C-alpha cells in the first residue's frame, strides 16, 4: 500500500486533526527557531543571547509576539489600504500551505487509524510547493508596492527579482531528483531514497538547491530585500503590530518549509540515518518524525550559521551568481544526469556509462583549468597598475616626522 493510498483512506476527522497538528507544529517550530536562532547567533558572537524570559529565555519569542500584538497598528496615509492588509496574510498563509505535502512520518497509527503523517499526497507535490512559494512572493511584492513609500518599494522590487531568479535555479536543481525518482510526489521521492539519499547521489543538485533555498527565503547572506543597513527593513518598513508579526512568522515558517523540502528530497525525509533503520519502528512508527525534525533542524542550524558568518552580497554580485553560475551549472548537470539515466535505463553496457561520466569529468576539469588561467592573466595585468599608485599612501605613523602636503616641483616647501 503506497502512502497515497494510505492517506486517501483518511476520514474527514483524521484530516482535520492532521491539519491541526501540522499547523501547531509549524507555529511551535517558529517560536522555538526564533529563540534558537538568537541564542545560536549570540553564542557565535560570544554573547549569551536572550536569556531572561523563562528558563534559558525559552519563551522570548512568545513575549515578543505579545509585545507586537499590543503595539499600535499603523497604516500609512499613502498606503493602498486593502492590499496593505492582504499582503501579510498572503505571506503567512502560503508558507503554511507548502507543509501540506511534506511527509513527516512513515506509516503510523493515529487514533486507531493506520495513516501517514502527511496532510495530502499530490502526484505533483513538489511542483505544488514551488507554486505556493511563488504565490508567497506576492505577499512581499504587494507589501512593498502598497506601502506608498520608497524603501519598501525598493525592497519589494529586489525581493521579487531575487526570488524569481533563484526559483529558476531551485526548480532546475529538482529536475535531477524527478529524473531519478521517476515521480514528483513527495512520498514517492522519500520512498525511492530508502537505500541511497539523493543528497549523496545527486550532490550538485543538492548544493544548488541548498544555495537557492537561502536566496528563496531572503535570508543572510542573500537578505537584500530586507537589508537593514540599506533599506531600513525593506518591504516591511511600514508595517507594525500584528501585520509585521505575520511577516516575521512567514519568514521563519518559510525557512522551516524549505528545510523540510530539502530533507524530503535530498536527505531521505523521515528515514533514519544509514545503519539505524531499526529505529523507524520505534514508538509505533512515530520515531520517524524525530528523524525528520532533526534533519530539518540541522538545515535550520546551517541557516543560522550562514547568517552568523557571511556578509550580505551586493545586488549585482547576487544576480550574477544566480544567473551566470547557478542556472547554467544546473542546466548542464541536468543534461548529464538525463543522459546517464537514459543510458542505464535502456540497458547500455556499463562501459558506456562509465565512459560518458569520465568524459564529462574531464571536460569540467579542462574548463575549470581554462577559467583559472584566464583569471591569473587578468590578475597579472592588474598587479602592474596596482603596484604604482599615483597618490600618496599614508606611511606607518612612527616613521613619519612631518607630513609635507605640497608636492615636489610645485613651488618648494612651505613647512
Amino acid at each position, binding site marked *: 500500500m503506497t502512502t497515497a493510498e494510505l492517506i486517501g483512506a483518511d476520514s474527514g476527522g483524521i484530516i482535520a486533526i492532521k491539519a491541526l497538528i501540522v499547523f501547531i507544529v509549524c507555529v511551535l517550530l517558529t517560536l522555538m527557531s526564533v529563540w534558537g536562532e538568537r541564542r*545560536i547567533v*549570540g*553564542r*557565535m*558572537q*560570544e*554573547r*549569551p543571547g536572550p536569556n531572561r524570559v523563562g528558563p534559558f529565555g525559552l519563551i522570548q519569542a512568545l513575549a515578543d509576539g505579545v509585545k507586537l500584538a499590543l503595539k499600535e497598528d499603523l497604516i500609512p496615509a499613502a498606503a493602498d489600504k486593502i492590499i496593505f492588509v492582504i499582503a501579510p496574510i498572503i505571506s503567512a498563509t502560503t508558507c503554511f500551505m507548502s507543509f501540506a505535502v511534506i511527509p513527516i512520518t512513515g506509516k503510523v497509527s493515529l487514533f486507531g487509524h493506520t495513516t501517514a503523517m502527511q496532510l495530502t499526497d499530490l502526484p505533483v507535490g513538489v511542483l505544488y510547493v514551488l507554486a505556493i512559494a511563488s504565490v508567497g512572493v506576492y505577499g512581499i511584492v504587494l507589501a512593498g508596492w502598497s506601502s506608498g513609500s520608497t524603501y519598501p518599494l525598493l525592497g519589494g522590487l529586489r525581493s521579487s527579482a531575487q526570488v524569481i531568479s533563484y526559483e529558476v535555479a531551485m526548480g532546475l536543481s529538482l529536475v535531477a531528483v524527478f529524473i531519478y525518482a521517476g515521480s514528483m510526489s513527495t512520498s514517492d521521492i522519500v520512498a525511492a531514497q530508502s537505500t541511497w539519499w539523493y543528497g549523496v547521489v545527486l550532490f550538485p543538485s543538492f548544493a544548488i538547491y541548498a544555495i537557492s533555498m537561502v536566496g528563496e527565503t531572503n535570508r543572510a547572506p542573500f537578505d537584500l530585500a530586507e537589508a537593514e543597513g540599506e533599506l531600513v527593513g525593506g518591504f516591511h518598513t511600514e508595517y507594525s503590530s500584528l501585520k509585521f508579526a505575520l511577516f516575521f512568522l512567514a519568514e521563519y515558517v518559510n525557512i522551516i518549509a524549505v528545510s523540510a523540502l530539502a530533507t524530503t528530497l535530498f536527505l531521505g525525509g523521515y528515514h533514519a540515518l544509514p545503519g539505524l533503520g531499526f529505529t523507524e519502528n520505534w514508538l509505533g512508527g512515530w520515531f520517524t518524525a524525530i528523524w525528520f525534525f532533526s534533519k530539518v533542524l540541522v538545515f535550520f542550524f546551517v541557516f543560522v*550559521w550562514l547568517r*552568523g*558568518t*557571511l556578509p550580505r552580497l551586493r545586488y549585482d554580485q547576487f544576480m550574477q551568481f544566480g544567473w551566470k553560475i547557478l542556472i547554467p551549472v544546473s542546466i548542464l548537470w541536468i543534461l548529464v544526469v538525463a543522459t546517464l539515466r537514459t543510458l542505464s535505463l535502456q540497458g547500455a553496457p556499463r562501459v558506456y556509462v562509465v565512459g560518458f561520466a569520465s568524459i564529462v569529468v574531464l571536460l569540467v576539469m579542462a574548463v575549470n583549468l581554462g577559467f583559472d588561467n584566464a583569471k591569473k592573466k587578468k*590578475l597579472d595585468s*592588474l*598587479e602592474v597598475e*596596482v*603596484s604604482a*599608485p599615483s*597618490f*600618496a*599612501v*599614508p*606611511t606607518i605613523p612612527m616613521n*613619519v*616626522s*612631518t*607630513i*609635507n602636503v605640497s608636492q*615636489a616641483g610645485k613651488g618648494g*616647501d612651505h*613647512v
Partner: protein
Amino acid sequence: MSEQLEPLNNKEISVNDVPFTQMETGESVGLLGHLKGFWIPFSKMFKKTLTVEYPEVKAPTQERFHGRHQLNRHPDGLEKCIGCELCAWACPADAIYVEGANNTQDNQMSPGERYGKVYQINYLRCVFCGLCIEACPTRALTMTNEYELADDSRAKLIFEKEDLLAPLRQGMLMPPHPMYPGMNDTNYYKGDVQQSHPSQDVK
C-alpha cells in the same frame, strides 16, 4: 626642510598578514580560507561569553573611572569647598552652578573665609571630562566610581550639594562648627588637622 612623504609601495602594506595587493585584486584565499571563515563563528559557540550580566553582576570599574562627583570634607567634618567657582568656570558643558557665601562665627562651613552655599551639578549636561576636578584648588571636588546615574525626570538629575557631599566618617562632626583650635586654613590645606577636637562639638 622636512621629509617628503614617500608614496608607500602597496606591496609593503598588509592587514592581518593579508597583503594589500591581494585585497585589491580579490585574489582567492582558497578553499581552506573559506572554511576557516566558517570555523571561527562555529568555534566561538563553545567559548565563554564576554557578556557581563549587568543588573545582577556589577563589575568593578577601572580605578580612575569618571563617575558621579563628590564634595569632600576635611577630617574634622568641615567642607573642603571654598565656593571659588573654578570648577564652574572650567566646565566645558556648563553643568556646574556654584554660589559662594561668607563663613561667619555662627556658621562656619569650611575653613577660611568662604564656603559653597549652593552647589549644583547638572548630570544632563555633564560629560564626565574631569576638568572641574583638575580645576579644584582644594581637592574638594573629586569623582567617584558610581555610574548608575539614570532617572525619570530632569529635575532629579540636577544634583544638589546634599546629594554630592561625602558622608561623615569616623571622627567627623557635622558642620557648621568652629575650626580646629589653633589651626588656620593653611593648616587645614596642608593636612595638619587629622580629626575633630572636642571643643568643636558645639551642639
